[in-house]
């Protein structure tokens, strides 16, 4: 019984160990289990009480003592046990069941992985996706799937095994779509040289950007401590240790427009003539607060500067060509008249000759009629045909009618630099050097009109058509004819609305409006590196001609190299050059209210030598109209227990982050279609 402590003695108890996989089936009906118990294979072991042993020629009972010892009847003659019982159906033990369920769980999980583990698709149990992608990434990768970023996704099993042991480079795939102002995998996309290059460690996109955080997941979050992991100068927070702003913050770079706030506010707008045009709402009259972001954009020329400066634009003509002084007449008058018709003076001379000839008797040749003889005489007089040779006298031997009268050029001008560039002439003041190319151009103008200038210009720029837009063939031809006949061109009317026109000895362009594309094109041509300095200086001269544009639009060289390529700052906008600083005006304007609140931070500095900065081309050599913004100004709000002051609130990590063009020209041309993931 239970209380008998000896009941588990080896000779008394069929001890059933818990690790046996089967138990006697009689316990199913709560019967007494047999002493033998089932075998390890689950077969019943209790059909007979024992397995008799043959000792010599006799069978002996081998029933265990715990089962009662040797039975009275003993084994049957055939050696079988005399006590037989029907077999039971052994029952699996608890541990046996547990092992099988454990195996089933393992098989179930493996089956799930096998069924769904390699599936690439939204909505299904995709074991390879640790979460939805952020909205932007999800859109353009939906056509390609995981392979857009993970090269190994659709690889074979052997490549998977290889990939498991090979370091991956996810960041490399990021740059198949993203572009930066510098190398993708250096700190702040900066190019390091020398010792700094050795010290700068390689950066990975995944160091800061962790994807698969859901459609609305924040994948650009970065803590201040992470910034300090690299930056040597460490501080607690913006208000506690951040370095003071530089003395030229935020205006390190010259503005695109040379608008002197000091002189306008303190001088021009105080002038009685302009006081009515003065900005009533100060800053926001010209700056559009509704579109404020990093900058508060300047409104259009028409709504700001035009009120005072629009008329100045139409006064600044572009001089394309001026007919220069010639020492000799290089034109064949007969040919010119044949091509253009006689000039006004020639028509008057012809009338006088006709009258004279009419009073003269006709000397007809033998084979001529009277009418033919009269026409011949008239042509001889007009110099259109040569006279028949007469016996020459000594004085008359080498004389011609042209040599008899001295040539006097209608022009006293020199060849302007723009025409020098067109004709490839080195000295615009030396008639000998430019007479031939000028005469060729004028002849070509007569022959093919504007095509003559277009051909010359096309040799120098591929934007020749834009530069000559609106130039009519008839105008050029008429001008050529007049000049070839050594006459001033007489324009029929003044150009009221602007465009190409000619007056006397010049072919000019009058700007139609602010931002005129023809003038813009010529000025851009002037900034290219393959033009002469004279040409550049003439076109960009703010004192005369179309160069007046450069009076307001600053002309800059890259990175302060004075002889480097120049550009005219046509576009307004961010010019700070501080790549890693970001600031949003809008929330601040909403808080402080637009208008006078601008001057809370932007305080005019009347002592700054603002205008001097625009007399040279280095955009970084600049003195702003405004005083530097001080850190304390920001700290009035951004400080401990006030408004937040994380590093990333004002600083952005990347330099000129952008996207590759193929993002827009993916399969199907849709912006949302997947890009082809080919590596550079």
């Amino acid at each position: 019984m239970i209380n008998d402590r000896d009941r588990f003695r080896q000779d008394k108890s069929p001890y059933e160990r818990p690790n046996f996989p089967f138990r006697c089936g009689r316990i199913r009906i709560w019967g007494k289990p047999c002493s033998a118990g089932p075998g390890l294979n689950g077969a019943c072991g209790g059909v007979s009480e024992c397995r008799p042993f043959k000792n010599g020629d006799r069978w002996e009972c081998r029933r265990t003592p715990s089962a009662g010892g040797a039975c009275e009847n003993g084994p049957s003659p055939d050696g079988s046990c005399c006590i037989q019982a029907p077999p039971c159906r052994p029952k699996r033990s608890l541990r046996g069941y547990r092992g099988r369920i454990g195996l089933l769980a393992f098989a179930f999980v493996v089956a799930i992985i096998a069924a769904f583990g390699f599936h690439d698709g939204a909505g299904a149990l995709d074991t390879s996706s640790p979460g939805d992608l952020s909205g932007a990434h999800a859109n353009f990768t939906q056509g390609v799937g995981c392979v857009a970023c993970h090269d190994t996704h659709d690889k074979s099993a052997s490549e998977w095994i290889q990939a498991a042991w090979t370091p991956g480079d996810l960041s490399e795939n990021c740059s198949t779509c993203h572009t930066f102002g510098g190398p993708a995998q250096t700190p702040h996309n900066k190019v390091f040289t020398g010792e700094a290059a050795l010290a700068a460690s390689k950066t990975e996109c995944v160091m800061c950007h962790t994807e698969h955080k859901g459609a609305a997941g924040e994948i650009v979050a970065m803590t201040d401590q992470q910034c300090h992991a690299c930056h040597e100068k460490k501080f607690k927070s913006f208000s506690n240790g951040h370095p003071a702003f530089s003395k030229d913050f935020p205006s390190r770079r010259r503005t695109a427009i040379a608008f002197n706030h000091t002189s306008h506010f303190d001088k021009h707008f105080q002038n009685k003539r302009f006081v009515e045009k003065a900005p009533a709402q100060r800053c926001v009259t010209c700056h559009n607060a509704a579109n404020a972001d990093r900058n508060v954009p300047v409104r259009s020329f028409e709504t700001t500067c035009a009120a005072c400066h629009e008329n100045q634009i139409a006064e600044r003509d572009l001089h394309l060509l001026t007919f220069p002084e010639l020492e000799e007449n290089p034109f064949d008058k007969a040919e010119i008249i044949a091509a253009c018709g006689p000039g006004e003076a020639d028509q008057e001379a012809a009338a006088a000759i006709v009258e004279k000839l009419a009073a003269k008797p006709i000397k007809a040749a033998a084979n001529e009629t009277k009418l033919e003889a009269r026409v011949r005489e008239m042509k001889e007089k007009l110099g259109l045909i040569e006279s028949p040779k007469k016996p020459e006298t000594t004085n008359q031997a080498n004389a011609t009618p042209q040599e008899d009268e001295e040539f006097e050029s209608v022009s006293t001008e020199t060849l302007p630099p723009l025409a020098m560039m067109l004709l490839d002439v080195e000295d615009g003041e030396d008639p000998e050097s430019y007479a031939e190319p000028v005469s060729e151009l004028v002849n070509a103008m007569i022959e093919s009109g504007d095509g003559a200038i277009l051909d010359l210009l096309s040799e120098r720029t591929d934007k020749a058509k834009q530069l000559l837009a609106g130039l009519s063939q008839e105008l050029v031809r008429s001008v050529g004819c007049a000049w070839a006949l050594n006459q001033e061109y007489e324009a029929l009317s003044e150009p009221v609305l602007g465009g190409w026109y000619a007056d006397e000895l010049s072919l000019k362009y009058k700007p139609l409006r602010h931002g005129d594309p023809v003038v813009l094109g010529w000025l851009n041509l002037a900034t290219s590196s393959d033009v002469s300095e004279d040409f550049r200086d003439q076109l960009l001269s703010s004192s005369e001609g179309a160069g007046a544009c450069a009076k307001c639009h600053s002309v800059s060289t890259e990175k302060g190299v004075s002889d480097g390529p120049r550009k005219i700052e046509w576009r307004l906008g961010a010019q700070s050059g501080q790549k890693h600083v970001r600031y949003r005006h809008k929330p601040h304007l909403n808080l402080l209210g637009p208008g006078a609140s601008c001057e809370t931070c932007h305080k005019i500095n009347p002592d700054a030598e603002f205008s001097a900065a625009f007399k040279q081309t280095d955009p970084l050599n600049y003195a702003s109209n405004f005083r530097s913004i001080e850190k304390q100004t920001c700290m009035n709000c951004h400080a401990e227990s006030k408004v937040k002051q994380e590093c990333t609130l004002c600083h952005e990590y990347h330099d000129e982050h952008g996207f590759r063009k193929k993002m827009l020209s993916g399969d199907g041309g849709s912006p949302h279609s997947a890009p082809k993931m080919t590596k550079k």
Partner: protein
Amino acid sequence: MARKIPMSLVLFGVLALASFAALFWQSRLITVQLGDASILTGYTLFVTILLLGMFNARKKLSMIPLGRARTWLIFHVVLGVFALALFWLHTGGIWPLGLYEQLLAGSFYLVSASGVFGYLLQKALPSRLTHTGIEIIYDRIPAEIAEIRERAETLVIECTKETGSETVAQHYVGTLFWYFQKPRFLFAHLFGGDAAGFWLRGPGSAARRYLNDVEKKLFDEILDLAALKAHVDRHYVCQGVMKKWLFLHIPLAVSVVTLAVWHLILVNVYVL
């Protein structure tokens, strides 16, 4: 008197706390230095899960002296709590986003919950079994019940032979046989109730008033056997529950290990 806290629990607890603090600090340091702390926490968690599985292996290798089972249990429990904390450190939250990770997290939470449930069972039920005053091997219980029943039936036959009265026999056949047939009043035993004793004092012994002294003596012996069977029944239920909760815990643990292995493969193939 306050219960003495096992030394091994203190030792493992302090070790686990120190390890977690070190891991937390190191992972924070890695994150601040723009590294991926989940590699450290992930691999540590995986090794922890494997170590937790060693507890089952230790039970199978009972012939090898690998320390006391009680020490192993404490180690298993402390490591389980450590794994849960490490899991949160690794995932950075309570519930991940990916469906597969949710499956893994769900399995992990279930195996943790079943572990807590099992630990509570192991704390609550053994004391109740000690109160029965008997020790019995779970696998022998059917045999013990059969033996008790056999003894009771022998007493019934002996009573009938000695007294010539069938009162006890009829009561046994009509009432007590049902009780001796197999474990009864399982829920009452599980939740600490005494429904079996109440039944024995009522319907189970209802015939006693009609018996003579000889019958009463034998009938009381039968009732003693019935009381003993109540203890056996309690062992059957409580030991059964203490064994059967593993039917949830172990398959879930197997699932977690399998899912974790696949997760590890995916991370190595796709990210690292």
